[in-house]
C-alpha cells in the first residue's frame, strides 16, 4: 500500500486534479472536445519532453531545446520567405535541429563538457543565431504558406464538431517512436544502462560516447519538430517563441520520474507529467481563477501531487 503510493502517488495526484475539475466545471471540462483541445495545447511541450526524456534517461540535460525550437521555426519561415516549398523549409529546420543536437552531443560526449554547461552555452548560441538570421523580427503573414500554417488547424474529423488535431497526432507519433526506441531497442536499453551506471555500461563494452552523441541529436530533432509545430500553430516565427519549453519539458520529465521506483525516466510517465501541466493550465483558466492565484495554485498542486509519491524516500 505504502509502496503503491510511492509509485502511483503522482498518478493519483493527476487523477485527483482531473476529478476536481470534472466536478467544478461539470459541463465543459470532461468533454472529448476539451481533451482534444488540451492535447493540442500541450503537443509542442509533449514533443520536447518526450525527446528530452531520451537525454535524461542517460542522466543528462538538454537546456538548448527552447532556443533550438525558436531557431528551427525561424529557419523554416526564412526558407518559406525565400520562396521554398513547405517540405524544403521543414526539412531544413529538422536538419538544423539534428545538427544542433549533435553539436551538443559532441560537446558533451567527445569534448567532455558537463551537459549543463555545454547546452547552456549552445542555448545562448542558438538563441543568438535565431535573432541574427531573423534580424530579431517576427516572420508572419504572407511569408508563411497556408499549407504550413493550415497543418496546425487541420485534423481528422471524429464527429461533426470534434476532430483529432494534426498536432496531437504528431505528438502521439513522437511518443510512439520514443517509447519504442527507449523500451524496445538495444539502443534504448543501453541509454538506460548509461544513466544507471556509466562506468558499468562502459565496462560492458557499450560505446557510451557514441550513444550520448546520438541521443543529443534526437533531442535536437525533437526540439526542431516542436519549433515547427509551434510556428505552424501561431502561423509565424519569432526568435523567442520556444523559450518557455525548456523548463516545462524538464519539469514534465521530472514529474514522470517520481513515478518510477528507482527514479529513472520513462516516456509514458513523461506523458503524465505533460498532462499534469496542461490540465492545470486549462482547468484553472476555465474556472476563471485570477492569473496570479492560478500560478500559486499550479506550483502548489505540482508539489502536492508528487509529495505523496516521495514521502519517506529520504533518510537521515
Amino acid at each position, binding site marked *: 500500500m505504502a509502496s503503491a503510493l510511492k509509485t502511483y502517488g503522482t498518478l493519483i495526484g493527476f487523477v485527483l486534479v482531473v476529478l476536481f475539475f470534472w466536478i467544478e466545471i461539470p459541463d465543459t471540462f470532461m468533454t472529448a472536445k476539451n481533451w482534444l483541445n488540451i492535447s493540442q495545447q500541450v503537443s509542442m511541450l509533449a514533443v520536447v519532453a518526450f525527446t528530452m526524456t531520451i537525454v535524461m534517461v542517460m542522466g543528462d540535460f538538454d537546456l538548448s531545446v527552447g532556443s533550438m525550437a525558436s531557431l528551427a521555426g525561424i529557419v523554416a519561415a526564412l526558407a518559406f520567405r525565400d520562396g521554398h516549398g513547405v517540405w524544403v523549409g521543414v526539412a531544413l529546420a529538422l536538419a538544423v535541429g539534428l545538427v544542433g543536437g549533435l553539436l551538443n552531443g559532441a560537446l558533451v560526449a567527445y569534448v567532455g563538457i558537463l551537459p549543463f554547461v555545454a547546452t547552456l552555452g549552445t542555448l545562448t548560441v542558438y538563441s543568438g543565431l535565431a535573432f541574427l538570421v531573423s534580424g530579431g523580427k517576427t516572420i508572419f503573414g504572407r511569408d508563411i504558406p497556408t499549407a504550413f500554417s493550415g497543418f496546425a488547424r487541420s485534423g481528422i474529423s471524429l464527429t461533426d464538431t470534434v476532430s483529432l488535431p494534426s498536432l496531437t497526432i504528431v505528438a502521439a507519433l513522437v511518443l510512439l517512436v520514443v517509447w519504442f526506441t527507449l523500451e*524496445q531497442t*538495444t539502443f534504448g536499453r543501453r541509454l538506460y*544502462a548509461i544513466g*544507471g*551506471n556509466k*562506468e*558499468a555500461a*562502459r*565496462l560492458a*563494452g557499450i560505446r557510451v560516447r557514441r550513444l550520448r552523441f546520438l541521443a543529443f541529436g534526437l533531442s535536437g530533432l525533437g526540439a526542431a519538430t516542436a519549433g515547427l509545430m509551434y510556428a505552424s500553430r501561431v502561423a509565424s516565427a519569432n526568435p523567442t517563441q520556444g523559450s518557455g519549453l525548456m523548463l516545462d519539458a524538464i519539469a514534465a520529465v521530472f514529474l514522470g520520474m517520481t513515478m518510477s521506483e528507482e527514479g529513472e525516466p520513462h516516456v509514458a510517465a513523461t506523458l503524465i507529467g505533460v498532462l499534469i501541466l496542461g490540465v492545470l493550465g486549462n482547468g484553472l483558466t476555465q474556472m476563471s481563477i485570477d492569473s496570479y492565484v492560478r500560478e500559486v495554485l499550479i506550483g502548489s498542486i505540482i508539489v502536492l501531487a508528487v509529495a505523496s509519491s516521495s514521502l519517506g524516500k529520504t533518510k537521515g
Partner: protein
Amino acid sequence: MDGRRCRPPDRVSDMTLLSINGLDKSFAGARALGGASLEVRAGEVHALMGENGAGKSTLIKVLAGVVKPDAGAIAIDGASVTIGSPADSLRLGLRFIHQELSVVPHLSVAENIFLGRDYPRRWGVMIDWDGLNRRAAAVLAGLGVNHIPPGRKMARLSVGDQMLVKIATAFQDASVEGGAPARLYVMDEPTAALSAEESQRLFAVIRRLRAAGAGIIYVSHRLDEVMELADRLTVLRDGATVATRDIAGLQKLEVIELMIGRRFAEGYPPRLAPVSSEVALNVEGLSTAYLQDVTFEVRKGEILGLAGLEGAGQSEVIRAIVGADGGHDGAVSLAGRPVKIEEPVSAWAKGLAFLPRERRQEGLVSSASIAGNVSLPHLDDLVRFGLVLDRAAEAEQAVDLGRKVKLKSKGPRQKVRELSGGNQQKVVFARAIAGSPDVLLLDEPTRGVDVGARYDIHALLRELTAEGKAVVLASSDLPELVYMADRIIVFRDGKVATTVSTEGLDQAGLAALCFGTPTAPSA
C-alpha cells in the same frame, strides 16, 4: 579445503596466451605499475598476488582498456595488441570480474547480464523479454545459481547476489548451450563478497573453463584459495613483477615472503587480556522486517562473532543496532543503560562505531580525502572556537591511524578514490577505531585486505579489547571468526540459530553450524 589439488597437470599447455611486458603506469606522478610483466598460458589458472596497492587492479584495468599504460607491451597469442577501450578488450576475447562491483541498479538482472550484447528479438524488432530472461536464467544456472529471478531489478539483490550476477555475466559465453568460452578470464577478488559455498561453485566453473582451454588470471588475498585453485602465480611488489612460480611445491609462507619482501608467519595474534564480566552491549528481542527476536549481550573486552550464510541476518543485526534502516522493536542498552537509537548519528554519539559491509556504497565518500573520510563521524571532536574545523588535527588523526592500519597512501589529503581497494577498506576501519568508541560493530572489516595488514588489524582488535572495548564482528571469513571471536552467534533466516564458544571449534565445525547440518556440535 586442505590445500591438496587434484588436477591433470598435462592440461596446462605451453602455449602463451597473453604476455605483458614492462608495463608502466603513473597517476599524477605516483607510480602504480613500474615494470610489471605477466605471462598466462591457455588452460591455466594464474594467480596474481601482491600487497594492497601493489598494482594488481591497475594491471587488470590496463587489460580491460580502462587505464591507458604509459609504457609496456601486451601481446595475445604472440600478436601485439593495443587495448583502447573496454569494447576493444571484449572483442579480443577478454572477460572481467572487476574488484569493485559495478552494476546498473535500475535494470533487471537479465539486462545486466546482456549489457552491451544484442538482446534476442521477436519479429526482428521488439525485444523478446521472455527469451532474454530465459537466456539469463541459463547463464545463471551455468554457475549453479538458481535462486535469482532474472526479471528482478538489480537494486533489489543483496550485494553477494549482485556479485554472482556479475560473475555469471563474465561466464555467459561458456554457459549457454554450445557456447565456447572466451580466451581469457580475469578475476579481481571475486570471492571477497561470496560465501564459502558460492566460492566452491565458482571454483568448479573456473576448473571447467580451464579444462576447455581458457586462461584465467585470478586475484585474491585468501591464500588458501589461491593454493587450492591456481597452477602458477606471479607476485607484484610496488608495481613490479618480482617472481613467477609454479604452485606445485610452493609453501604459503614463501608466497607471503615474496609479496611483502620479508619473513612473516600467517596466523592470528593471541588474546592479550581476559574478557571482563561487565556487559558493554545488551540487545533484547530485536526485531525488524527481517530479524526475529534477536537477543544477546557482549561484554567488555569480548569479541562476539556473527556467522551465518549470506543474508542470514548478521549484517541486519548490526544495521538495526545503529539505526541504519530506521526503527526496530526490542531494547538495546549500553553498559546497562537503555538507549534509543533511530539514526546512525546517535549511534556514533553514544560510543558505537559502525563499519558497514560495502565500503564503496555505504562506507566511503570517494571524492573526499583520507582524512575527511576518517573524521566524518568525529567532526565535532575536531572543532576550534565551536565551529572551525581543525584541519591540522584532522590530518594528524588520519596519519596516526593510517600508520596503525598499514595504509599505503601519498598522505592524509589523498583522495580515497585513488586508493587501491584494500587500502580503501583500511580507511573505513581507521574511521571505526577513531575517537575511541566503547563498542565496535564491524561488518566484514578485513575484506580485500592483504595478509600483512590483516594481521595488523587483528592485532589492533586485540589491543582494543584489552582496553575493555567490546567488538561485534560479522564475517564470512570463517577462520577469522574462529580464531578472533570469543563466542559466535550463528544466524539462520533472521533468527539466532545457536550461540557457540570458539573453544575447540574449528572452521569445518562452524561451517556445519551455518548450514544447519544436524550433526553439528552445539555449545
